[in-house]
C-alpha cells in the first residue's frame, strides 16, 4: 500500500506543474513546426524533444546527473557550436564571393540588424517587467545574425538563461525567411531593379579558395581576436575542404561529426527551455526583437545594394542584398525566387551566395565585437 502511494507520488500527474506542462506543449509545437512545417528540422526536432524531456517532472533529465545536463557542458564550453561551425565551414563554397568580392559589403550592411536590435532591446526596458542587461541585449541582438551556431555561442557566453529562447527564435526566423523577406524586398525595390541581370561570375581557382580562409584568419587574428574562435573553426573546416588532401577529415566534419554534435546540441539547447526561463515577458520581447532584427537586416542589405549601384559600373540586383543576413542557403534561394518572378531568365542564386556567405563572416565579426565590448 505504501508502495502504491510512493508510486502515485512519483507519477508525473501528481507532480506536474503548470509551467512544465506548458513548456512540454512548446516542445510539441516545435516538433510540429519541424516535422509538419519543415522549420529547420535538423535542429528544431532535437530542441523540441529536449524541451519535452527536460520538463518531465521528477525525471530530472535536464538537472545535474541527467543526460541533458551532461550534454549541456558541450555548449557551456563552446565546443559544440564551434564544431558545428567547423562543419558548416567545410560545407561552404567561397567561390561566388571570391568572384565578386564587393558583395562582402552586402554581408556587412545586413549586420545592422544586429546592432539595431541591441538598441531595441535596451529601449524595450521602458516596458514594465522587462529588464534586459547589456549582456542580455547583446545576446538577443545576435539573432539578427541569422546564424544558428553563432547565436548559440554568443548566448551561451553572455546570457545562458536566455539561450533557449534565443536559439528557438534564431532557428524559427531562419525557417521563416521565405515569409519575412519577400515583402520587405518588394517594398524597397522597383520592378526595374528586380529585373537587373548580373554579369556571369568568373571561375575561381582552387588556389584562391585555399588561400582565402587563411587570409581571413590572419585578418581576424590581427584585428578582432575575440571572433577568432568562431572565424577560426569556420576557416579550419573550409580549408580542410578546399585543400582537397584531407578529404577523410572534411567528409567526417561535414557528416558524422556535425550530425552527432547537432543531436547533442539540439537536446542541450532544449534543456534550457524551462518554465522559469522561458515563461516570461522577456521571451515575447525576444521573439519580437528577433523578427525586427531579420527585417532590418534584410532592408539594410537591399538598401546597401542600391547605394552600391550608384557608385559602381557593374550592376547589382538589389535583391541579392537581402541574402546578406546569411540564413544560408535559404536567403539566397529567396533572392533567386523573387528575381525569377520579375525576370524569368535571371538566375540570381550564385550571385546571392556571395553576400550569403559574407553574412556568415559578418555576423561572426559582429559576435566578436559584442563579446569584446560587452562580455
Amino acid at each position, binding site marked *: 500500500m505504501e508502495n502504491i502511494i510512493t508510486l502515485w507520488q512519483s507519477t508525473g500527474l501528481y507532480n506536474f506543474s503548470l509551467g512544465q506542462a506548458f513548456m512540454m506543449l512548446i516542445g510539441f509545437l516545435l516538433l510540429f513546426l519541424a516535422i509538419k512545417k519543415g522549420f529547420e528540422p535538423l535542429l528544431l526536432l532535437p530542441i523540441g524533444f529536449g524541451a519535452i524531456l527536460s520538463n518531465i517532472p521528477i525525471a530530472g533529465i535536464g538537472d545535474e546527473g541527467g543526460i541533458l545536463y551532461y550534454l549541456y557542458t558541450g555548449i557551456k564550453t563552446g565546443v559544440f557550436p564551434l564544431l558545428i561551425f567547423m562543419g558548416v565551414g567545410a560545407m561552404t563554397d567561397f567561390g561566388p564571393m*571570391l568572384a565578386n*568580392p*564587393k558583395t*562582402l*559589403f552586402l*554581408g*556587412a550592411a545586413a*549586420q*545592422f540588424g*544586429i*546592432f*539595431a536590435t*541591441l*538598441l531595441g532591446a*535596451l*529601449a524595450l*526596458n521602458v516596458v514594465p517587467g522587462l529588464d534586459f542587461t*547589456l549582456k542580455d*541585449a*547583446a545576446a538577443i541582438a545576435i539573432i539578427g545574425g541569422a546564424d544558428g551556431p553563432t547565436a548559440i555561442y554568443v548566448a551561451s557566453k553572455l546570457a545562458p538563461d536566455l539561450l533557449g529562447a534565443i536559439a528557438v527564435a534564431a532557428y524559427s526566423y531562419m525557417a521563416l525567411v521565405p515569409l519575412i523577406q519577400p515583402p520587405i524586398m518588394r517594398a524597397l525595390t522597383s520592378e526595374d531593379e528586380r529585373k537587373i541581370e548580373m554579369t556571369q561570375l568568373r571561375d*575561381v*581557382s582552387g*588556389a*584562391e579558395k585555399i*588561400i*582565402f580562409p587563411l*587570409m*581571413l584568419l590572419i*585578418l*581576424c587574428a590581427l*584585428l*578582432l581576436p575575440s571572433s577568432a574562435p568562431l572565424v577560426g573553426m569556420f576557416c579550419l573546416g573550409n580549408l580542410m575542404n578546399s585543400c582537397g588532401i584531407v578529404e577523410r577529415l572534411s567528409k567526417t566534419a561535414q557528416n558524422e561529426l556535425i550530425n552527432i554534435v547537432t543531436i547533442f546540441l539540439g537536446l542541450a539547447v532544449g534543456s534550457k527551455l524551462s518554465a522559469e526561463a522561458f515563461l516570461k515577458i522577456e521571451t515575447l520581447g525576444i521573439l519580437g526583437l528577433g523578427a525586427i532584427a531579420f527585417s532590418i537586416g534584410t532592408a539594410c542589405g537591399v538598401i546597401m545594394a542600391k547605394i552600391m549601384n550608384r557608385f559602381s559600373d557593374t550592376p547589382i540586383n538589389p535583391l541579392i542584398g537581402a541574402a546578406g543576413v546569411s540564413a544560408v542557403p535559404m536567403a539566397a534561394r529567396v533572392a533567386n525566387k523573387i528575381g525569377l518572378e520579375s525576370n524569368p531568365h535571371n538566375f540570381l542564386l550564385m550571385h546571392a551566395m556571395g553576400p550569403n556567405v*559574407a553574412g556568415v*563572416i*559578418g555576423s561572426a*565579426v*559582429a559576435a566578436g*565585437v*559584442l563579446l569584446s*565590448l*560587452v562580455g
Partner: protein
Amino acid sequence: MNEMMSTGIEIMLVGMGTVFLFLAMLIVTVNVMSKIVQHFLSQKINEQSTLVHTIDPSVIAAISTAVHHYRNKDAS
C-alpha cells in the same frame, strides 16, 4: 536617454564600423590576393603554352607537308 542606451548607441556605432572596416579590408586583400594568384596562374599557363610553341618547327613543317600530300592523293 539613460546611460545604458548611450552605451548601446556607442556599441552600435563601433560595431557597425568594425564590421564594415573588417569586410572592407577583406575586399581589399581578396582583390590583391586574386590578382597575385591569377598572375601566377597565367604565368604558368604562359610557360605551358611556351612549351607548346617550342615544338620543333621542322616537325610542324613535316606534318603539314604530310597532310598536303594526303589531301592531294585523296583528291586525285
